[in-house]
């Protein structure tokens, strides 16, 4: 066994001295113990200097022992798991941990950037904004920013893809207790005793929070035993969930609390399949916020030197980690609480140079100062620390009377500072709870909340142990009652944590302040009793005298308020002088509280100093807005498993496997994957699409149209409903026929198109475009439920029920005739006919719906079968088509075919700004009936002759028509060149051997024969085009009907 590190105590603390752990910091190997954080292990090895500050590159040490840490931010190096800005104070040590200082070069001890500190009088608050905004063009800030970011950078993000898994978990409870300290444990216990479903979470790996007083007794037990027994009781209760290492970071509407559980971050080798972190979304009936309190600092000269830390943090390192944070300490405070930490340090063998207390002697009459004096500690009353000195570590402090005068130097290597405590009101404020300034505590405490949120314990300004236990107990009980109104399980048959039947009535909370006598163990559901107060974590802020800063002896010396963002007292004064006096302006101008610590130790000090500057009371300055997250949350936790290709669901048709096996390139259509084309070896996608399109014109092709929206309509009023929904007439449609229809939005613009078939007298099938399937269904449901509930029409989406193929081309009937059991001759099954039939192929028998309709302009059919037969149908059609050289075709060929035919597409031609008339579909609008959108078609602007109308364009010179081109008269006219329209769809037509396009052109229908230009200034391309009708092929539609 090697010698334990110099600053490790021989005994005490919650560490396991039998489990040594090796780790590396800044390239040096160290040893720590299980139970250490990186910070405690470094301190045990005498390492204080761990980083450089954000702006001035000042040396920074370990300042706290928790999530509020502003200085000890390190780069955790784990390859793809590398992570910047990790708080050393919460980073649990594991074997082989490698971490490094950040924001320093070449090393943390010799950092070039420290020249910023010498230059600091030239770079005050707002310096970057004022200086680097000039000259305004050409956007110099963008260039400066890179250099500034390098100089001021924090750590570096990993450049490799995140290898970890993150899980989500939704949870529901009656009472969520945030914080597992004295108040939180008491609250969870009293809530559980009512039978409520309880979730208790705490950000730390162990329970107890700030409850660490070795002398306190609760329910007749030591603090450690009480914590162990209480958590064991809670864990045994089936309706209680305990979540350690879980930070409740955000409060959202409807009592939804976001929490992140660090499942494997503390392990050297995470077990396979375990998620790294789990994001909890907890819906609670009521929330108890037992989030504790955060200690604050005092701004004196050089108060940022390593070796300076919050008094309670020093106490925590002694008590929890068995570490002496120094050899000789000076404690600087303005209240009783820090005396407990001074005593803990003293008992651990740290020499106490002095306790420097800013208060007058009369305020030091209570027990703790007396104990300190009895222990022989020097207490300097009415005194302040005026400044500290040292280079990379504090060597001494200068002490003087508060009123002023000469200073005395006291040598020390540790300064423990405490200016009081601030309740952690973050979640309370996020939930729009009101805060109240408490003069005695000199801080903001929770006031009223309209929501079922109950702050308890230190978070509620109740700092001593007895009050915290009482408060927690009452809060847990009250929360359970509040939740009862929201979630009845709390008032159903209840099982107490001790297994006995109980009811909320016999768990009446004790009156506030009533602390029963100590000693006897109490039943689980009763109020915990305590003695040995003050609060274990020295939260006794009784008799506090506010002190925010100490006047400096040299005006150039820095007194830090925000240690992470290098905001000093002088910066706040500057902001006040320059008019940035509102607290939100102060924050943004100085960056106070804008670091990753969100100013947990600094905000109150900053706004108190602003109040001093302005000569107003602190409540008048107010606080900045608290927003989630409370502490930083790994970005990967938010998407969870929904990342990569799973960022949204993928929809695949029943024939998808066939497409993939036959070389299809897929394209996204909404969430669907559709085959774009089926390139053969060595063939480009464009060539494949042209081949596929040509084959449809010359022989026969098959395309998967399963993705089209399909809606079945039943009921005696369907025809009337369709009349109201579509612009054209439907009461004339006979059974066994289908018809093309267009529907409008309320504003008269084209919304969607498709065909509707009459399958039986009161049974119809509507098809919609792929991307509008849901929108049309919503429209139908809205109209039936809200507008016309009197219509007997029922609608169901059957998109998923039916797989569909379109068979197109002059040989399509020849293929079909081999497959179906009905006569498909032109006489028996003419254009726009519909029939039920059976597809027979080999032994297979598939009930099917057959439609004769065409999108390509060729003779064409659609066959629909039950989706589970889709693959079988496709194989059957392909096999039957072999003698006719059948080919599958994708969306690209389909698009080419429909452009040649002049069919519009929703989204391209019907882009939400076009009317049926613009698209040349005015003839469909039935003048004799009303339909959705029709009244607003009467608007004058929709009938003007200069509206953009659908035309066809043909390239004059064989050049490609540029994508997204504008239509102009003169391609070389000076800017702004008047735009006459734009190209909506374009392709090379293999049938015509020419580049063609559909376009919307002003007065388009009157300009057939005109020559215009399609230009794309972006691509630097232009093409001379002839305007004509949109239909390039078979304008009379003869091929459809043969």
């Amino acid at each position, binding site marked *: 066994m090697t010698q334990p590190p110099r600053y490790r105590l021989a005994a005490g603390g919650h560490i396991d001295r039998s489990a040594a752990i090796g780790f590396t910091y800044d390239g040096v190997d160290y040893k720590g113990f299980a139970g250490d954080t990186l910070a405690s292990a470094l301190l045990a090895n005498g390492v204080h200097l761990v980083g450089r500050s954000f702006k001035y590159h000042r040396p920074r040490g370990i300042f706290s022992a928790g999530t509020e840490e502003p200085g000890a931010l390190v780069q955790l190096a784990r390859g793809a798991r590398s992570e910047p800005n990790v708080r050393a104070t919460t980073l649990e040590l594991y074997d082989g941990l490698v971490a490094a200082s950040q924001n320093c070069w070449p090393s943390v001890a010799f950092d070039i950037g420290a020249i910023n500190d010498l230059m600091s009088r030239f770079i005050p608050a707002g310096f970057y904004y004022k200086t680097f905004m000039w000259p305004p063009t050409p956007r110099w800030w963008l260039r400066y920013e890179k250099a500034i970011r390098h100089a001021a950078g924090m750590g570096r993000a990993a450049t490799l*893809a995140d290898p970890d898994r993150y899980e989500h978990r939704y949870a529901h409870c009656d009472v969520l207790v945030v914080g597992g300290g004295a108040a939180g444990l008491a609250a969870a216990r009293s809530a559980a005793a009512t039978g409520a479903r309880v979730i208790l979470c705490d950000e730390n790996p162990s329970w107890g929070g700030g409850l660490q007083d070795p002398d306190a007794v609760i329910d007749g037990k030591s603090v450690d035993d009480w914590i162990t027994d209480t958590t064991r009781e809670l864990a045994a209760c089936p309706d209680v969930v305990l979540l350690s290492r879980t930070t409740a970071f955000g409060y959202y509407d409807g009592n939804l609390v976001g929490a992140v559980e660090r499942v494997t971050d503390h392990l050297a080798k995470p077990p396979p399949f375990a998620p790294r972190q789990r994001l909890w979304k907890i819906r609670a009936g009521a929330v108890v916020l037992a989030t504790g309190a955060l200690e604050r600092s005092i701004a004196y000269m050089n108060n940022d030197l390593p070796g300076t830390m919050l008094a309670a943090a020093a106490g925590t390192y002694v008590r929890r980690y068995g570490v002496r944070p120094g050899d000789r300490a000076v404690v600087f405070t303005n209240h009783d609480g820090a005396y407990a930490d001074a005593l803990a340090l003293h008992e651990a063998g740290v020499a106490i140079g002095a306790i420097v207390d800013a208060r007058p002697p009369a305020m030091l009459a209570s027990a703790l100062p007396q104990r300190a004096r009895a222990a022989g500690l020097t207490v300097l009353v009415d005194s302040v620390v005026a400044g500290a000195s040292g280079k990379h570590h504090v060597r001494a402090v200068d002490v003087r009377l508060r009123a002023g005068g000469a200073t005395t130097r006291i040598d020390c290597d540790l300064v423990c500072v405490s200016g009081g405590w601030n309740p952690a009101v973050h979640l309370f404020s996020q939930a729009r709870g009101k805060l109240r300034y408490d003069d005695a505590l000199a801080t903001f405490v929770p006031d009223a909340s309209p929501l079922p949120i109950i702050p308890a314990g230190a978070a509620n300004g109740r700092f001593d142990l007895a009050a915290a236990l009482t408060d927690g107990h009452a809060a847990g009980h009250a929360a359970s009652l509040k939740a009862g109104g929201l979630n009845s399980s709390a008032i159903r048959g209840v099982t107490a944590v001790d297994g006995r039947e109980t009811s909320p009535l016999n768990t009446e909370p004790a009156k506030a302040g009533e602390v029963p006598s100590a000693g006897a163990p109490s039943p689980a559901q009763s109020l915990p009793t305590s003695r040995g107060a003050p609060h274990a974590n020295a939260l006794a802020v009784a008799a506090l005298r506010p002190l925010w800063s100490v006047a400096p002896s040299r005006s150039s010396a820095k007194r830090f308020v925000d240690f992470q963002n290098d905001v000093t007292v002088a910066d706040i004064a500057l902001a006040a002088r320059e008019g940035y006096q509102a607290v939100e302006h102060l924050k943004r101008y100085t960056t106070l509280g804008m670091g990753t610590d969100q100013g947990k130790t600094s905000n109150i000090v900053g706004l108190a100093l602003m109040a001093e500057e302005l000569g107003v009371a602190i409540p008048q300055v107010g606080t900045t807005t608290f927003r989630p997250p409370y502490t930083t949350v790994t970005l990967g936790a938010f998407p969870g498993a929904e990342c990569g290709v*799973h960022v949204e669901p993928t929809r695949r048709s029943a024939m998808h496997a066939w497409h993939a096996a036959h070389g299809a390139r897929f394209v996204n259509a909404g969430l669907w994957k559709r085959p774009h084309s089926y390139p053969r070896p060595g063939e480009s996608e464009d060539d494949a699409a042209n081949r596929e399109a040509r084959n449809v014109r010359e022989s026969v092709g098959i395309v998967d149209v399963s993705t089209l929206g399909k809606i079945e309509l*039943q009921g005696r009023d369907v025809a009337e409903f369709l009349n109201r929904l579509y612009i054209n007439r439907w009461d004339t449609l006979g059974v066994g026929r289908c018809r093309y229809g267009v529907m409008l939005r309320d504003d008269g613009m084209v919304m969607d198109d498709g065909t509707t078939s009459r399958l039986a007298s009161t049974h119809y099938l509507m098809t919609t475009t792929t991307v509008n399937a849901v929108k049309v269904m919503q429209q139908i449901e809205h109209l039936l439920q809200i507008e016309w509930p009197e219509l007997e029409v029922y609608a*169901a989406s059957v998109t998923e029920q039916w797989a569909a193929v379109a068979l197109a081309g002059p040989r399509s009937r020849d293929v079909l005739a081999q497959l179906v059991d009905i006569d498909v001759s032109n006489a028996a099954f003419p254009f726009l006919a519909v029939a039920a039939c059976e597809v027979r192929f080999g032994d297979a*028998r598939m009930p099917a719906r057959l439609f004769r309709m065409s999108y390509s302009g060729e003779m064409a059919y659609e066959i629909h079968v039950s989706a589970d037969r889709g693959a079988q149908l496709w194989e059957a059609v392909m096999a039957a088509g072999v003698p006719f050289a059948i080919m599958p075709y994708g969306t690209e060929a389909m698009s080419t075919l429909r452009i040649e035919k002049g069919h519009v597409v929703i989204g391209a031609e019907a882009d939400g700004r076009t009317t049926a008339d613009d698209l040349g579909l005015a003839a469909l609008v039935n003048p004799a009936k009303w339909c959705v959108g029709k009244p607003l078609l009467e608007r004058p602007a929709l009938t003007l002759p200069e509206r953009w109308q659908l035309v066809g364009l043909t390239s004059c010179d064989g050049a490609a028509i540029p994508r997204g081109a504008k239509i102009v008269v003169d391609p070389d006219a000076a800017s702004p060149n008047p735009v006459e329209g734009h190209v909506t769809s374009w392709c090379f037509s293999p049938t015509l051997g020419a580049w063609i396009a559909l376009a919307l052109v002003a007065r388009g229908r009157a300009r057939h024969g005109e020559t215009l230009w399609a230009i794309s200034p972006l691509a630097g391309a232009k093409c001379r085009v002839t305007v004509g009708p949109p239909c390039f092929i078979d304008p009379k539609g003869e091929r459809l009907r043969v």
Partner: protein
Amino acid sequence: MSDAAIDAIGATAQGRFGATAQGHFGAMAPGHYGASASGTYGAAGAGIVLAPATIATAWNVQGDPSSAVFTDQARTMFGAPLPLVPNTTTRGAASAILWLGPRSWLVLQELASRPVGRADDVTQPAEEVAAQPSAEFDAHRDALSAQGGALFDVTASRVAFTLRGPHAATVLAAQCPLDFDPRAFPPTHCAQSLVGHINALIFRHADAQMFSVMVARSMAADAWHGLCVASASTGYDVAPASPLSIV
């Protein structure tokens, strides 16, 4: 980010062709997620059995529940009354009726014969699916239509998966915002919600540790993948398909 890097994380940008088969987890543990063959996967100590379930017929009944002729017709036809309390179910001899909405129900009938599920690829349909009784369906539709109601065949619309075991509710809670406490979601109740980002109809069997999840056919592969991923940290068994039983 380079194209290679985009491919590595499986992102498909608009205009890029080809679904990347290897998903986000593909590089980490191929074969362990989205498992398709029978077997044991994930962490040790399987706490859940996942299996596809074959739906014999699924019919969507719609109509006005205040019309006695309609509800009587439905009861006669399906051997059970339409459930009128939201998210509840009723059972007939070989069928169950699930509440979907104030005027909409799902009638699930069980298979007369038991198809044999495939062990090598459980996501493929069972080898013997009963022929769809299309004439019977048409007769039912006409009968309901005569009483002012409607009947839609949605048998192939959804694919069902069952989750069984002590971790079934936990695995669902990783993907679904509903409260799966039996007091909030009692056995034999159903609900429509999300599983991951996919709409799902969830049924809790009389065995409170067993759920059936029905999702749109086109998204079934993603839903199955999501269930496997969510089950990985507890470990899971994959079993071949069996007929969906609404008990």
